[in-house]
């Protein structure tokens, strides 16, 4: 029906050096990983841009690799979420596994890739937040002086001021390294569907070690798909200064502190997102209270 109107040119590099030469010739190209997000947009087809160039990353062999040692697992950015589940379900951090499980059917996880989930354009999936809470690092490849350079960095370094993952121009994420966490408190919770109702959805990932009623190295990241990731070291340090279990007053103070930060970062979130965020925060605090009471009883 629309054939020939604006068919994008597809480039399929077989390795990263081919990618580098393509991106040099076509610097305005769009990168295509699994395509689940791009294809699920209502205006995905026909393409509005004339002479669009797409670089399909699915043929780059080194981005499909997976390796692990006793400290971390390293995934190529084109490893699908289904492959992550089948290779690392027993060893990977629980928060990540729970995050993948919320996506639902394998018809989607079989196509969605880790790199695509992190670097989706103008949209934030629940994955970067979870990976931030898990201290994940990513290898970013970027062009500098016509050459492809690589740098490992924590995912938090890629967060811009608006809470979105921002890659350098013509850059891509090639590998993701996730440490095997020994943190004994890991939660992932999502309310609403990120793909079908992004304006009302929210997810939160929390990791920490609860030792003698005190949280060690806590990290919390709250994600709003259309706005970005709410992550701050200040909130982490508020959590680490607390002694659990919290009473009602302490719980309310903590909640209002977090909310002040959330509202100052994202003033446009919907009332339903606010209510859902409050609900998720409550459930995290309740679980921490319960854990601390159980552990003190055991002692």
């Amino acid at each position, binding site marked *: *029906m*629309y*054939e*020939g*109107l*604006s*068919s*994008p*040119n*597809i480039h*399929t590099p077989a390795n990263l050096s081919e990618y580098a030469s393509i991106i040099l010739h076509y610097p305005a190209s769009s990168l*295509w990983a699994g*395509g*689940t997000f791009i*294809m*699920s*947009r*209502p205006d*995905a*087809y*026909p*393409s509005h841009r004339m002479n669009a160039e*797409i670089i*399909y990353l*699915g043929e780059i062999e080194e981005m499909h690799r997976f390796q692990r040692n006793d400290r971390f697992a390293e995934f190529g950015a084109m490893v699908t979420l289904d492959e992550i589940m089948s290779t690392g379900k027993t060893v990977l951090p629980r928060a990540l596994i729970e995050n993948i*499980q919320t996506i*639902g*059917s*394998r*018809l*989607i996880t*079989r*196509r969605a890739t880790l790199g695509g989930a992190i670097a989706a354009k103008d949209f934030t999936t629940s994955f970067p937040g979870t990976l931030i809470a898990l201290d994940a690092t990513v290898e970013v490849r970027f062009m500098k002086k016509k050459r492809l350079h690589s740098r490992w960095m924590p995912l938090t370094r890629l967060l811009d001021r608006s809470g979105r993952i921002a890659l350098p121009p013509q850059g891509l994420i090639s590998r993701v390294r996730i440490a095997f966490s020994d943190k004994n408190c890991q939660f992932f919770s999502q309310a609403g569907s990120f*793909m*079908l109702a992004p304006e009302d959805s929210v997810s939160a990932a929390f990791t920490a070690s609860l030792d003698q009623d005190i949280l060690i190295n806590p990290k919390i990241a709250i994600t709003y798909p259309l706005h970005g990731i709410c992550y701050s070291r200040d909130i982490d340090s508020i959590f680490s200064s607390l002694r659990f279990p919290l009473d009602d007053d302490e719980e309310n103070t903590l909640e209002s502190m977090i909310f002040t930060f959330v509202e100052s970062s994202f003033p446009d979130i919907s009332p339903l997102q606010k209510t859902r965020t409050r609900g998720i925060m409550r459930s995290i605090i309740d679980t921490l209270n319960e854990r601390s009471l159980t552990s003190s009883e055991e002692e």
Partner: protein
Amino acid sequence: MKIDCTIDGKTLTLSLNSDKPLSLILRENMGDDGAVNHCNGEMCGLCTVLVDGKAMLSCLVPAFEIRGKTVVTFDSFRKTRNMKDIEKAYEAAGRFPCSECYASRSLIFESLIEEGITDEEEILKELSIVRCPCMDPEDAISIVRKGIEIRRKRNVRRTQLA
């Protein structure tokens, strides 16, 4: 863009927009507008097809990704022996999907039976993409398990005959 692929057993060379969704290709270029839905990426689950034997949502697959691949829609799948196994499993379980989701559920069942997945959680998760409420989860699980049993028996019979 010229794309070589096999759709329902026919080897074709199609001239298409490279980012055209497979669901639209099947409806507009192949005339298969009865069995394949085009929900514009809303993930309704009713546009399921088999790509190289694996169930996929055709609205999420762009044209350039089917180069050299084999696509099977329900239109051709329903004439196969594998569909007969699934029909037998429906009869054994005493439950049939409704006419709306019959095609997509049958293709997802085929993918699960082919992979031999018996884990309840995995079966339900795979089927969760079809939001039609016509089938109970227990029935879906028993259909997959029955289907695997029927397929295994048929394969054993075939090897014995060979």
